[in-house]
């Protein structure tokens, strides 16, 4: 409009009011932007994972369970984990699970650093034994969870899943991703360092 002329007083306050209204809008958009950026950054470093389902188990003692033997290992129960003096990695696996087979090599390397106890999840004992014969056996002890009920108490939603158990039987770390991923191995290494003090 007539911009050269000094605008009337009424028009001036309307412009000011519009500008003031824009402040909360811009502020809100800014907050959303920062939050979103933080989320994305967290996903990159692994500190934020929207797909992480069972966060509740970490920081809790191991649930009550008893697992029968799975050849070629011996089964274990809650008491075995509660009387630990060194950290142990619990790994749920199955012979029908391709990511578990992909993970085996990493587990075989890892067992030199800390004992790994395996749980055969909803697997036929002969099939699980066949896998370990074929791919190598990284497990110090192996239990069989045929009906998958022990896994539910651990909050397992799929195999492979791994849990780091501190001495005394506390679950201190968890991953629903395979240990063949370097990020997951790094995260485990940090958790292990924290436990070992």
């Amino acid at each position, binding site marked *: 409009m007539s911009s050269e002329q000094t605008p009337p007083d*009424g028009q001036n306050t309307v412009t000011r009011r519009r500008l003031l209204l824009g402040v909360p809008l811009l502020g809100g958009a800014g907050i959303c932007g920062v939050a979103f950026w933080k989320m994305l950054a967290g996903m990159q470093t692994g500190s934020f994972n929207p797909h992480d389902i069972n966060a509740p188990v970490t920081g809790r003692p191991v649930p009550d369970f008893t697992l029968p033997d799975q050849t070629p290992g011996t089964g274990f129960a809650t008491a075995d984990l509660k009387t630990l003096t060194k950290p142990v990695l619990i790994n749920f696996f199955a012979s029908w699970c391709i990511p578990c087979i992909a993970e085996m090599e990493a587990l075989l390397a890892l067992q030199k650093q800390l004992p790994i106890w395996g749980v055969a999840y909803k697997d036929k004992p002969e099939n699980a034994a066949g896998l370990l014969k074929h791919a190598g056996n990284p497990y110090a002890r192996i239990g069989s969870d045929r009906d998958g009920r022990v896994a539910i108490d651990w*909050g397992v939603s799929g195999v492979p899943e791994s849990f780091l158990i501190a001495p005394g039987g506390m679950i201190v770390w968890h991953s629903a991703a395979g240990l063949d991923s370097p990020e997951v191995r790094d995260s485990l290494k940090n958790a292990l360092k924290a436990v070992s003090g």
Partner: protein
Amino acid sequence: MRALFRGKTAFRLKAALLLVCLSAPVMAWAVDDPSEMLPDPKQERQAEAIGAQLRCLVCQNESIEDSSAGLARDLRKVVREHVAKGENSQQVIDWMVARYGNFIRLSPPVTIATLLLWGMPVLALLIGIVSAVMIFRRRTTTPAPLSAAEQARLRELGDDR
């Protein structure tokens, strides 16, 4: 082929095919195996209602009642065991949340993290009302009286006729 199925036969075949197609999703919704169902229909209804609120963790946007994944079947079984023991819906859901976190609930509880999610309808309504009021107000404000220069210009334009 065409010559073989004509008239009534073709109609019957088409009808049968349609019936199969229509019943396929219905079969997928139901519990996989009728032997899973509880003998007491009231308890079975309660179990179904609980299962409909629990997320299948394998196929994440289905409820365990809808899914035919192995874990969903196992969780359905667990729900029915708890219901058969006489537990109420809240107890069963709490049992699940203790193991899988709030993620297993298809309808998340109100927490700080979900406040914006739950508050959004009210927030959107407020924003709508505020903008409506503002637009309405702007329309009804009477324009400032014409200045002397504008009045002169108006007269000038009127003279053109």
